[in-house]
């Protein structure tokens, strides 16, 4: 699965935190540093496994924890309607 941000959602990285506006629901989401990293790389070109690897390279986290965090993170965002999980296979 290759997560991709829902198109044309208003968002901006402000003070190193992604702020995302869900216009239809009127919700505002603010992500922490690792969440922002994952969000900015969710362009449909990286698999969940690759994103977990990238997380390990850039933050102090082991691969098992990173894999778990990435799965949970994108599941949560998909539930909120902010991410599409695109199956490239």
């Amino acid at each position: 699965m290759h997560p991709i941000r829902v198109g044309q959602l208003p968002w901006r990285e402000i003070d190193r935190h992604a702020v995302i506006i869900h216009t239809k629901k009127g919700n505002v989401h603010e992500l922490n540093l690792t969440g922002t990293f994952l969000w900015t790389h969710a362009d449909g070109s990286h698999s969940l496994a690759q994103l977990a690897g990238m997380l390990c390279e850039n933050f102090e986290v082991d691969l098992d924890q990173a894999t778990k965090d990435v799965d949970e993170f994108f599941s949560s965002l998909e539930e909120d309607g902010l991410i599409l999980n695109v199956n490239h296979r």
Partner: protein
Amino acid sequence: MSIIGDLQGRTAKHRIPVQASLELTHSCNQRCGHCYLASHNDSGKGCSPLGFEEWRRILDELSEEGTLFLTLIGGEAMLHPKFWQIARHCVTRNFAVSLITNGILIDDVVAERIAELNFFQVTLSLYSMDPAIHDKMTGVKGSYARTIAALDQLRLRKVPIGINCLLTKHNIDSCFELKQWAKQRDIRIQFSLLVTTRLDGAVEPALERASAEQIYRYFATLRKLDNQIRPAAVVAPNPTDPDSPVCNAGRGRCAIDPFGNLLACIDMRDQIGNLRERSFRELWNSPKALCLSGFINHDLKFNPRSKDGMFCSHCPAMADLEVGDKMAPVPFLMEIASIRRRIYECKTTN
């Protein structure tokens, strides 16, 4: 504190222009007696208004500086010949786009186009449930019916909508009918008493202001209905802290007029510079911009911790227009503050 409130505080502190008002045109298809614009067309200014390519470049620069919330305004913003292209580029660049409009151009076709753009908010100016009062205030016969029709078309398409209602001597006494009407339709409504003089200094709009008696009745009714009369709670400043900024102009927000002049806010017409000549980043970090963002409570020429001062939301722009000094008290604002304080004191002693 909400995410938005926290965001506003942080962006103001670090001078990130998270919010920008884009005044696309001064052209307007209404002639409101309370309007602050000196003219209702874009001619006679020595240059043409910004075209689409110019706005596109500016929007790209704003995006790089962290701007997230855009408000498209006028005049009547939809009269800009490239309105749809500009709006589409705003959405493409992931801005949260709000439109403020009188709505009289919005029929079913236009409402459909608006819905497709997925705006964050569309706010319409509606002044009364009485068509005669609304039409009198806009100077256009039939404008009430067209604005109501626009609201219906947008609601049908589930476009997030709101109502702005400026309160003048004509409509303030009947404003709670409008409030009730909006509430029944789950439409957010915002009232404002702040009728300013014209940007060229002409006082005619100020003659439309509600009287002290009308304002007193308004706040007294508000107290009975909402029980929300309280000391001024402004976005960034803390009136008890002398080093707190007076307002968010030039800190967390900015504005751009139709000719590319960068402003600290839409009401403060001191030009920081022109975006046709210099980049947004360069102008935003210029000495002029820093100066216009540096007004703090300590500089106020009245005591913000006095009995009335605590209820006053000071506006440096309004003070500059009306009394020629950004930090001096504005008589109209102090009058409103005094009334609010009296109503608040009645509430807290009863």
